[in-house]
């Protein structure tokens, strides 16, 4: 009797244990299957985000290539809501980067939103060397602040009238700068036109205290620019002032927030100028052989520079090669060579000779 009772209890216990074990087994396998699918979903989510970034980066690359080729044009391009980080040699959407190659691009550090503005200008020094591509968004506001000096007022008016109409900018008198209102901007770039060195660092208007602000001081007399970045509540100068060559380079400084990125882009431009000058110098040495003893010959080929007398060619083209090979590049001397080349081209036209450019 006792034996039978014990056997029944044992059987019941075995059934209970088996049931418990079965449940634990189902729970573990269920959890494993759930974890597996959760892992797949998370991986797919990350992959689709990367895929979207790659798609935007590729489309943007096509847009930027097209924009570079259509010089003198301004485009307002709708893009998916995203943040693009621009550097001198690449741009990034999330972790996805795309090389810019030889494209010379000037942009704020971050371009946010669902629209980008692209503006392309030819860089003629004095012959076309490349195209400068400027990128910005409607969320960046440019506040141009001239001083009372005539030169400053003239430059401010020229900048204001040359910038495409859609670019979010305003001209403000220097006395009104502290009263500039916050128009719900994400980024503000204050462009002050005055002499350098600046008496004091530009201050951030009170209403813009919480906005991403940066500043650029332009000295039109010395043709220099000084970059300022926000450091806490004030604007601090970054490095020494940089020389600018022409309006196209000046617009580059206006659109680029970082001094380092601006210098890098300009170095790329000077590299292109170096290559182009070498090709032009060589071209005119070849052409000169057809004009020996004529009035044209002297314009194409002269004695080499003091540092390389064996290399004959047009003095100004050879100077451009030498100036853009040296570091740092002497921008003021480039301006002189550019002016000489313009004069030579006019003389060639008067003498009915093939033109330099």
């Amino acid at each position: 009797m006792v034996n039978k009772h014990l056997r029944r209890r044992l059987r019941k216990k075995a059934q209970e244990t088996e049931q418990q074990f079965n449940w634990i087994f189902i729970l573990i396998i269920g959890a494993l299957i759930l974890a597996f699918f959760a892992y797949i979903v998370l991986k797919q989510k990350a992959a689709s985000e990367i895929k979207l970034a790659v798609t935007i980066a590729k489309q943007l690359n096509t847009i930027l290539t097209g924009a570079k080729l259509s010089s003198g044009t301004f485009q307002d391009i709708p893009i998916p809501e995203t943040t693009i980080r621009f550097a001198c040699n690449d741009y990034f959407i999330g972790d996805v980067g795309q090389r810019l190659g030889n494209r010379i691009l000037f942009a704020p550090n971050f371009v946010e939103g669902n629209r980008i503005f692209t503006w392309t200008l030819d860089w003629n020094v004095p012959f076309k060397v490349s195209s400068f591509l400027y990128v910005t968004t409607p969320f960046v506001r440019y506040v141009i602040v001239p001083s009372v000096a005539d030169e400053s007022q003239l430059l401010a008016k020229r900048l204001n009238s040359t910038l495409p109409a859609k670019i979010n900018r305003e001209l403000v008198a220097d006395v009104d700068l502290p009263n500039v209102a916050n128009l719900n901007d994400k980024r503000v770039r204050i462009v002050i036109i005055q002499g350098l060195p600046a008496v004091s660092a530009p201050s951030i208007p009170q209403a813009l205290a919480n906005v991403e602000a940066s500043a650029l001081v332009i000295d039109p007399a010395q043709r220099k620019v000084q970059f300022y970045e926000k450091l806490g509540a004030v604007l601090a100068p970054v490095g020494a002032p940089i020389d600018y060559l022409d309006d196209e380079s000046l617009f580059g400084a206006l659109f680029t927030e970082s001094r380092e990125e601006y210098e890098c882009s300009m170095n790329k431009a000077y590299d292109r100028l170096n290559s182009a000058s070498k090709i032009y110098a060589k071209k005119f040495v070849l052409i000169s052989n057809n004009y020996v003893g004529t009035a044209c010959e002297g314009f194409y080929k002269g004695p080499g520079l003091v540092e390389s007398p064996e290399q004959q060619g047009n003095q100004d083209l050879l100077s451009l090669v030498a100036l853009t090979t040296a570091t740092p590049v002497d921008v003021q001397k480039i301006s002189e060579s550019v002016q000489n080349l313009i004069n030579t081209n006019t003389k060639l036209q008067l003498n009915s000779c093939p033109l330099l450019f």
Partner: protein
Amino acid sequence: MKLAMQSRKSQLKMGETVAILFIFFILLTIGAVFYFNIKRASVTREGSEQFELKAVEITQSISFLPEAQCTESNVVKASCFDLYKLIALASLKNDPKIVRTYEREFGQSALTIRQVYPPGANYTIYENPPPQFNDASTTNIPISLYNATADRYYFGVLEVKVYR
């Protein structure tokens, strides 16, 4: 006897569960293999598209290369290459600075300009083939060539070969 039967029944049930799981994972694996094969095909297709896009980009860049284009008073003439600039470019193609500049723009490709009429020379202005390549896309674009000293235009073809 009854206990042994009970235990056998449990083992059978357990085996059944394991078999179901086994079949489930086999089906999952087959699904995954199928999915990844489709994915691989689409990645290969995207790679080809990307390569074609790169080839078009290089073709566009060379067509608008200021160092080779014809200009008159700084006004660019469309689809026209200056013969003397091409000769200069071809002779300077091994200059380290020029190589570095164009490598960034043209990557692994070869750019040749052939004078077709009147028959003339070929100018290879850039050449950077990879040590080994599987495929190359070649695009031929008709262009005009300008001889500044003779003030004449010739017919030519720009051959853009992009290596993969």
